[in-house]
């Protein structure tokens, strides 16, 4: 029996590695699950992209659920995500709030002019300070926030049609069912 121990230990390792390979085909190894899930979104007060004199706070957005989409003109994958957002946005059933992250306002406006603007509201976080409170570490990232201001779902990386259909829409449906 003792002589079998190394073999058994090794087989456990093989199982672990098999799991690792399987897991990596289903998960983005660079995505870190947020600890903010099902917790109130952090308070913020950020200028609008197009009217920097006006600011938007978390309180202003309470009462209606929305999808907060973190994007930037320097972010390559945002270009992948953008057409999906444009196509699927209107059918989601929640407002689309654009969160322009660490971007020069002029660059962001140019980028939106070129790719189209699917967002109902656009806020800008040029220094990236508020984004830290959201646990943002890159772009694109998307937060689904309900009417009470609680984060219900987060996706890291571009929203693809697959992610929208299999994760985002069910999350929205569950949220709306709970608090219509």
């Amino acid at each position, binding site marked *: 029996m003792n*002589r*079998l121990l*190394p*073999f058994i230990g*090794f*087989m456990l*390792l*093989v199982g*672990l*590695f*098999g*799991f*690792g*390979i399987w*897991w*990596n*085909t289903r*998960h983005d*190894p*660079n995505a*870190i*699950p947020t600890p903010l899930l099902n917790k109130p979104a952090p308070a913020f007060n950020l200028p609008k992209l197009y009217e920097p004199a006006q600011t938007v706070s978390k309180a202003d957005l309470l009462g209606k659920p929305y999808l907060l989409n973190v994007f930037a003109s320097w972010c390559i994958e945002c270009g992948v995500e953008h057409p999906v957002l444009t196509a699927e946005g209107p059918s989601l059933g929640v407002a689309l709030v654009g969160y322009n992250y660490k971007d020069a306002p002029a660059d962001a406006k140019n980028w939106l002019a070129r790719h189209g603007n699917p967002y109902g509201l656009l806020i800008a976080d040029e220094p990236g300070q508020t984004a830290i409170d959201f646990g943002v570490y890159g772009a694109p990232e998307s937060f689904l926030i309900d009417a009470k201001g609680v984060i219900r779902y987060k996706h890291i990386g571009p929203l693809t049609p697959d992610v929208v259909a299999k994760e985002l829409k069910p999350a929205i449906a569950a949220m709306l069912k709970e608090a219509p």
Partner: protein
Amino acid sequence: MTPELGQLALILALLLALAQSILPLIGAWRGNRALMAVARPAAAGQAVFVAMAFGILAWAFLRFDFSVQYVADNSNLALPWYYRIAAVWGAHEGSLLLWILILNVWTVALVAFSQKLPEVFASRVIAVMGLIAVGFLAFIIFTSNPFGRLLPMPGDGADLNPVLQDPGMTFHPPMLYMGYVGFSVAFAFSIAALLGGELEQAWVRWARPWTNIAWAFLTCGIVAGSWWAYAELGWGGWWFWDPVENASFMPWLVGAALIHAQAVTEKRGSLRAWTILLSIFAFSLSLLGTFLVRSGVLTSVHAFASDPRRGIFILAFLTIVVGGSLLLYALRAPRVLGGKPFKVVSRETVLLIGNLMFAVAAAMVLLGTLFPLIGDALNLGRISVGPPYFGFLFPLLMAPVVLLLPFGPFLRWGKGEAPVLKSLLLRVVIAALACAIVAAFLVDGNLKAIVGVAAAVWITVGVLLYAYKRWREMPRGRRYPAEMAGMLLAHLGVGVFVAGVLLSESLSVTRDVRMAPGESQHIGSYEFRFDGVHRANGPNWKADQGVVTVIRDGRELTVMHPQKRTYLRGQVQTESAVDAGVTRDLYVALGEPMDAGNVEGAWALRLYYKPFVRWIWAGGLLMMLGGLVCAADKRFRLKRGAGAEAGAIASLRVQENHA
């Protein structure tokens, strides 16, 4: 047409590897000499074809054959020829080909130097080497073909990762693979021993020089990698406990244990099963490293681009080779206690404790490396295990090894003498304490530095006392047989290494500073004067090159040129400037201009003062040298032919019965 020839050569090599592995095994089993005789020519043939494939790939790089995808991905017209050669192993496919080439180098060496081994045993060993080659050749042919075409052929290629465009990185992979693959020899010996039953006990003596050489190469590879990370990456560190670094460190630890276990088994006949198990572990961990680096299951700075198909292939191969050999071990490992008995106070006991600590340390590194994966599996959330974890546990586990190291050589096999130990203990304690007290004044009471000095003195004095004892007691010519000289060198290397690690970690100074041209910064007695930045051009890069003059006691010591390079394809790479010294390194890395774009103005610079950091690699090189010297011992040469060895086997058998 030539790249296709390369692929053809690989396929032929695979066929020969199949012949090399299957036929001799059947021959050894059936006692058929004709089948056993296939082993050597098949191995030689395989080596010829693999060398041909490697040469063809190198040739494709040298003549810019961008119709080969791998060449187009990893080189371009401006890349100098020496880096085009290095680019052969610059990415996954080519580095795998290098792995296979080195496996063939080892196999050919084995074929050449095993003429005097018993035929059955030798053919089994060569067959096991062939089996490993089959796995890797199939891997490269079916999942990672380096000869794939890219049509239409692009006018120019991409680039070799600029991180790899450094002399240190050019030598690091071949050395490392020499070590990894070298453990396959010890592995093949122990598998052959298991297959043949206990009769061929003498295999341990035959395997010893191979293990020592493999371990020496692995040491060299790790030292080269560590040196490169230090000099090239601009972060001033030399080890980060990254999964890929750990992947090379685990076989090293197990290899160190194996070297000592083999000594016990060869000389005293004890620890036979353990030696076999360690031989299997050392090579398995080498394979595991290959898996971890190429499968993408762990996140690392150095990993190759991953592909789940490759992961599955290596995992399957790993399961067959390692699982199969561990199963064979479970079925066939010697059950009877062999060898001579020993007392509690004896060299065997000390070596056993050392072996235990090395094995536990390797297990700890494995656990820490894989724990993020375990965390995913058990749904514990994403967990990071890094330098604080390993840096805390590893020294604790190695402390007993350091403490016992001076005593090992002084203890006799079987039964040590207490009075000798007491006088030795007294001397090393006094020496270590005295040096620690002196050091305490010099380093301002820095505890880590004091411990470093004490530990280094402890080891060094122990080693030197033993060398002196031999000098006094033995006649000339018999004082230091190669095996012992190697041991002394390697142990001295441990002392130098310990001093380097603890002193440089505790006394280093790092400063990020803003410097305008003409401004100075002081670190200790060194004054760093920044003399501005100018442009510099290389064969395939442009750089901002800083000029930093170092002044000490009013005298100009050196002028350093840290660079920030921009390579052809836009990759930015820091090229730090290092002024090396025996007692300290000065190290400067160039950051960004403080006002974006104003290269005339102030720049961000990182200045390091790193005392004794070079001792880390010097210690590693001493260990490597020790391994090589050890392997040169006359006793390991198979001069008298297999007949004498059979005599040795017989005498060991007698001892077993006696026990």
